[in-house]
């Protein structure tokens, strides 16, 4: 049990005891309690300790030397027990397993000793091999470049999100409808504006007439009517023209009785009458 330590396995110190780096678990009979504590913390569990003991024997897991390993393992566990280390319970489960395997190996061998299935060590060997993969994987993972330890993700400031925020928001008809209901309530409360469904299409038609007049100087009155809209449409146009006239937004001109009635925007006419500056 005083084998030379296998230092290649752990190039980093396990820890520091009174400022001195510890590169391997001490194999001396005397282990300072604080060193042992540190040492046991360096094992991630009983499988790790077991694997370490096997490696220290320079043995293959497949030849699991159960007798010496069990002996050494028990010594560690007893030390842990004395130190009342918290992890002891998990280590005791392993100790019981090792003891069971040992006792089965000590029983007289039956004829089929070649059969691996009956080797009481088989299950433990399988678990050790699996654990070895995991431990190796964990070490390789630790050697991978890690974000915030070995590298940082680069980023650049951008105003693109603000531009994205300028994308026009969507509005539903329900939103608009609600807004309209609110303003209609307001108008009702004020009670001096007309609240009329029909007025709406009239007002809209007023806009269209004004819009057309913004492109041409004047229009023949009849051009403002579209017979294909039917009687209702003609009435709406007529009401719109009357309302525009009433509001002083357009002017209706008829040179003589029964001649063509022209419609023009009030302002355009005003401009015509005033000499250009």
């Amino acid at each position, binding site marked *: 049990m005083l084998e030379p330590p296998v230092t290649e396995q752990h190039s980093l110190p396990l820890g520091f005891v009174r400022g001195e780096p510890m590169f391997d678990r001490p194999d001396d009979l005397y282990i300072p309690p604080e060193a042992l504590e540190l040492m046991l913390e360096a094992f991630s569990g009983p499988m790790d300790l077991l694997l370490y003991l096997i490696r220290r024997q320079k043995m293959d897991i497949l030849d699991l030397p159960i007798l010496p390993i069990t002996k050494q393992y028990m010594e560690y566990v007893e030390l842990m027990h004395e130190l009342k280390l918290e992890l002891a319970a998990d280590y005791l489960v392993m100790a019981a397993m090792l003891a069971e395997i040992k006792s089965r190996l000590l029983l007289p061998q039956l004829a089929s000793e070649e059969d691996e299935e009956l080797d009481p060590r088989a299950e433990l060997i399988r678990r050790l091999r699996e654990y070895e993969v995991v431990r190796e994987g964990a070490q390789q993972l630790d050697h991978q470049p890690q974000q915030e330890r070995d590298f*940082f*993700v*680069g*980023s*650049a*400031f*951008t*105003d*693109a*999100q603000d*531009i*994205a*925020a300028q*994308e026009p*928001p969507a*509005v539903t*008809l*329900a*939103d*608009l*409808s*609600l*807004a*309209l*209901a*609110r*303003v*209609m309530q*307001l108008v*009702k409360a*004020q009670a001096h*504006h*007309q*609240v*009329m*469904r*029909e*007025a*709406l*299409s*009239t*007002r*809209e038609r*007023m*806009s*269209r007439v*004004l*819009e057309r*007049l*913004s492109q041409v100087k004047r229009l023949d009155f009849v051009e403002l009517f579209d017979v294909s809209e039917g009687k209702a449409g003609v009435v709406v146009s007529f*009401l719109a023209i*009357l309302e525009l*006239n*009433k*509001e*002083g*937004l357009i002017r209706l001109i008829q040179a003589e009785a029964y001649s063509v009635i022209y419609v023009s*925007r009030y*302002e355009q006419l*005003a401009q015509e009458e005033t000499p250009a500056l």
Partner: protein
Amino acid sequence: MISDKQLKQIVEAAIFAAEQAVTVDQLLSGALANFSLNRPRIRQVLDQLQDDYRERGVQLVEVASGFRFQTRAELGPALANMWPERAPRYSAALLETLALIAWRQPTTRGEIEAIRGVSVSTQIMRTLQERGWVKVVGHKEVPGRPALFATTKEFLDYFSLQSVADIPALAEPPEPDTRERDMIEVLNSENGTN
């Protein structure tokens, strides 16, 4: 000693990795703490980096709080597509203004303000026009010649409407007494039609 190349790499990486703009002092006391370097040398490296990135998609800029990399200004619209669902909602004031214009068009800003009882912000009027929902169809011949606003065909198309009269809230007939009075008002409108 540190080579120019290494120094440039560290400065570049530190600025890219930082969440905020980085000052020369932060570089000197942070990433470059193990080298004895002076401020002019760092400035020089920053100048070189600015040159290196001049034609690239990101650029090294000095802002009030230090140096940072930022995306080229011209790329903003293309990059904005990376964040598609950012659009905020319109305010109630904007929607009410829109509804009022739809309803009372052609109308002036003054009339809208009179009904809503608050002033209508220029921003709202600009937004509605930029969106193509509202436009100026003329001017009212009163002092100041205020613009007359009306809704557009784009507005109707956006809401799949044939006419503003199709806006659901309008389908609700007003209370009879109001309706009657309004009817009279329309019919009485000046030259005594019908």
